[in-house]
């Protein structure tokens, strides 16, 4: 029998307590003495009153209702749900990192600055870019930072008419959303029959009003843009810049670098490529790297070194300013730095080798049963189209639910948009061959089940803690918080 879990607000008793604090040792003054009454809270705060045991049991039970990489295979395409090494968590929690205040004097944060400095050198080498800022807090934040830098570059050259950003149809949703946030207009470019950006279409739209082309390479189809060199030339010849969405860097580390492909700005998702955990939705970190001519526009401060001393450099008169209150998600960068230290150059190349090998292997297995458009060598992910299954009565979303019943996290569904009934599958470098074989068998089983009784598949899942959730109802009559009866 499935059962809902009680909310915090339905638990506890008035007067119950889950904390201890030292008693106040300064001369007591009542709040009314310290602050005018009209500035004080009018109604007492309503929050649950729970003992520590209740809090722990509540969240422990919630955790059992959640699926993470540590629970099982998580081939959520584009998100690079690889294993998150435990030791990374330990080092990031060291008091010498986790308990630093961002306004501490420079000489008290030398280790942190050294880490940022080293990490920047590593990221430069990994990507072929000339400088990095760690300030952006996630990939999308990096995109916005990157477009701001590009905008500042054009503006500073007196080039004020570039009001469009080109985006391929396969682009992740954050790309067009970022373009709007940076005040630009989105121009969408179609894909050709091989899944590449349609070069002819690109040539037609790129002109003196183009600010940049944003590109994910390999694309969200898991395909390397074979004409990247020509594309870069076309874009640069028009005076526009090339932006690299680094969400898929896990496919090409040590094999190719965006900086060598002609990209002027890149962001990395270090919560993907460099193994830091996704935290149920975050925090991430989205460092942005640029080529020489764009360095002056990076956010302040940069981290530099003079002799043996590391320091924050605020002396960037053309800088766009700041995109986060301080220096970015330092705690996440610490984890990624530890990962890079442990992998080394050859190790990171092996990561990409295995990510790509796993992806092509799993695609080969699934191809026997499923339709995978764009039949060519893939990079770290591939997209199954469940269009034939949909015709039989169970589509991508239903296959996803059937995978839940078999203990797998499903692929990303219904994205990218140009593939009907998409199941975007990214197996990652940290999965064994046995896991992939098991997954392929499960997918074959599901295909058979659809053949036999598609309706039954479409009514799943059957073995999860909750049954299929009514998303339409949630959106139609939104209940976004608990309220006292």
């Amino acid at each position, binding site marked *: 029998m499935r059962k809902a*879990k009680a*909310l915090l607000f339905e638990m506890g008793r008035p007067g119950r307590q889950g904390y201890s604090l030292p008693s106040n*040792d*300064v001369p007591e003054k009542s709040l009314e003495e*310290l*602050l*005018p009454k009209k*500035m004080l809270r*009018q109604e007492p*705060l309503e*929050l*649950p*009153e*729970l003992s520590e045991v209740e*809090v722990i049991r509540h*969240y422990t039970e*919630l955790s059992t209702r*959640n*699926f*993470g990489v*540590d629970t099982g295979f998580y081939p*959520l395409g584009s998100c690079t749900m690889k*294993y998150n090494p435990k*030791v990374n968590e330990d*080092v990031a929690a060291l008091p*010498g*990192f986790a308990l630093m205040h961002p*306004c501490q004097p420079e000489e008290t*944060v030398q280790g942190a600055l050294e880490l940022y400095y080293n990490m920047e050198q590593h990221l430069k080498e*990994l990507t072929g870019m000339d400088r990095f800022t760690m300030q952006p807090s996630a990939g999308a934040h990096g995109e916005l930072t990157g477009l*701001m830098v590009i905008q500042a570059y054009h503006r500073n050259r007196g080039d004020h008419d570039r009001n469009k950003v080109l985006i391929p149809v396969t682009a*992740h*949703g*954050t790309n067009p*959303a970022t373009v709007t946030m940076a*005040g630009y207009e989105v121009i969408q470019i179609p894909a050709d029959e091989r899944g590449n950006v349609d070069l002819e279409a690109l040539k037609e739209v790129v002109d003196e009003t183009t600010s940049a082309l944003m590109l994910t390479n390999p694309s969200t189809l898991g395909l390397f843009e074979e004409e990247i060199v020509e594309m870069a030339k076309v874009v640069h010849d028009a005076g526009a810049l090339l932006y690299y969405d680094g969400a898929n860097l896990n496919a090409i580390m040590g094999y190719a670098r965006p900086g060598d492909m002609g990209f002027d700005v890149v962001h990395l998702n270090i919560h993907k490529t460099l*193994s830091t955990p996704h935290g*149920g939705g*975050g*925090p991430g970190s989205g460092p942005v790297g640029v080529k020489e001519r764009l360095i002056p526009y990076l956010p302040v401060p940069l981290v530099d070194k003079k002799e043996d001393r590391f320091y924050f450099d605020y002396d960037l008169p053309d800088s*766009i300013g*700041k995109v*986060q*209150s*301080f220096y*970015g998600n330092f705690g*996440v960068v610490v984890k990624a730095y530890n990962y890079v230290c*442990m*992998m080394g150059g050859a*190790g990171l190349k092996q990561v990409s080798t295995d990510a790509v*090998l796993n992806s092509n292997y799993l695609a080969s297995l699934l191809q026997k049963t499923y339709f995978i458009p764009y039949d060519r060598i893939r990079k770290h992910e591939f997209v199954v189209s469940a269009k034939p299954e949909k015709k039989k009565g169970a589509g991508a979303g239903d296959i996803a639910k059937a995978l839940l019943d078999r203990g797998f996290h499903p692929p990303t569904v219904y994205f990218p948009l140009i593939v009907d009934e998409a199941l975007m599958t990214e197996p990652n470098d*940290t999965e*064994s*061959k046995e896991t992939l074989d098991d997954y392929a068998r499960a997918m074959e089983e599901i295909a058979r089940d659809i053949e036999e009784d598609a309706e039954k598949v479409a009514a799943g899942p059957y073995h999860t803690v*909750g049954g299929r*959730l*009514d998303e339409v109802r949630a*959106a139609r009559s939104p209940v*976004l918080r*608990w309220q006292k009866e």
Partner: protein
Amino acid sequence: MGGNHYLPLTDEDRREMLKVIGVDSIDDLFSDIPAEVRLKRDLDLPPAMSELEAVKHLNSLAAKNKHLNSCTSFMGAGVYDHFIPSVIKHITGRSEFYTSYTPYQPEISQGILQAIFEYQTMICQLTGMDVANASMYDGGTAVAEGAVMGCGATRRSKALVSKSVSPFYRAVLKNYFNSRGLELEEIPIKEGFTDFSKLEEMIDDQVASVILQQPNFFGLVEDLDGVADLVHNHKAALVMSVDPLSLPVLKAPADYGADIVVGEGQALGVPPSFGGPLLGIMAARSKFVRQLPGRIAGETVDSEGNRGFVLTLQTREQHIRREKASSNICSNEALVALAAAVYMASMGPQGMREVAEQCAQKAAYAFEKITALDGFEAAFKGHNFKEFAVKVPGKPEDLNQKLLQKDILGGVDIAPFYPELEQTMLFAVTEKRTREEIDTLVRELEGWK
């Protein structure tokens, strides 16, 4: 070697897999990368470290930093040294939470979805707002997005921000507005407070958002009665940035008439981590719900009629609406929001009130002692919560140097942000500070010339 143990494939596996794929070598898998952009050398990174070596290296870097355990801190300016109950790391350390991602598949993500729903509820209880989202990156980006929301809701393109709002937040705000082509003006301050007579002159029917902070950057509690009326008379939105840990004792933003509430949530059980990851709080009245950025968890039922939770109102979001989305935010700070939720659940209404009261009392004690010293005087007259600005008899940098010798992290020098406020420092005093620590600080200040 190094982290190769994170890669389970053996050479034998690789050979078998290549055969299944139908290619001869690994190189064939990369043949789609044009030769001219292929990296023809090895990556030049330091040799791989074993786990033991890496831990040693990271420890040696951490050892070069001072921190809130090795020093007594009076630093604030948006990030504070509050007590963090132990339970928090045990919950956020459960890998079913921290190794999961955005709950796109609700049937196996009820844990994080329910935790977010509860977090949203508690943020609403604190602020008096109707809805809250699952988090923004930090206080600065929350302020910026809150101001942009006001523009979206009113279809106007101008905001007014008080100079008493944190300069860290205003820097981010300025950037967001500049890039998007929106107009931003600063409301001057008068003796530490927003000059509301200036606001009255500046506001007109072009203004979308008015952004204020409570307590303001100087730790002062502003008198905001009547401000909402002024803002609403012009059909603009009042955006309030708050310290959530002040709300157990200070008047709720809803009671001031705020429309959108933003802020930095680090005070709620989150380690400062050198300024990130932090927690951007975002809440609003229900009429703004379509403009809210980011993830929102909502209640629904499952196929058996049981209560359950899903991500909802997704038609606001980038993965559905693309260039028409309310924001580009995708990954957020969900795990930090979980930490804040565990904090609020553990402390409860009583604990949070006690923390807030102790902050106010200890700050008042420190303020009185420090401003009684020769050469030290209150920068402003008013009521403070847990932070206050003091004019000091010399260079703040030198004073902090001296304090550092005693392992004290002194105040934040605010002259870089307010050139007119020379030799002025911002001291924060939380519930963690003891009378003895405060007295020690005062003694050190006393001897300083």
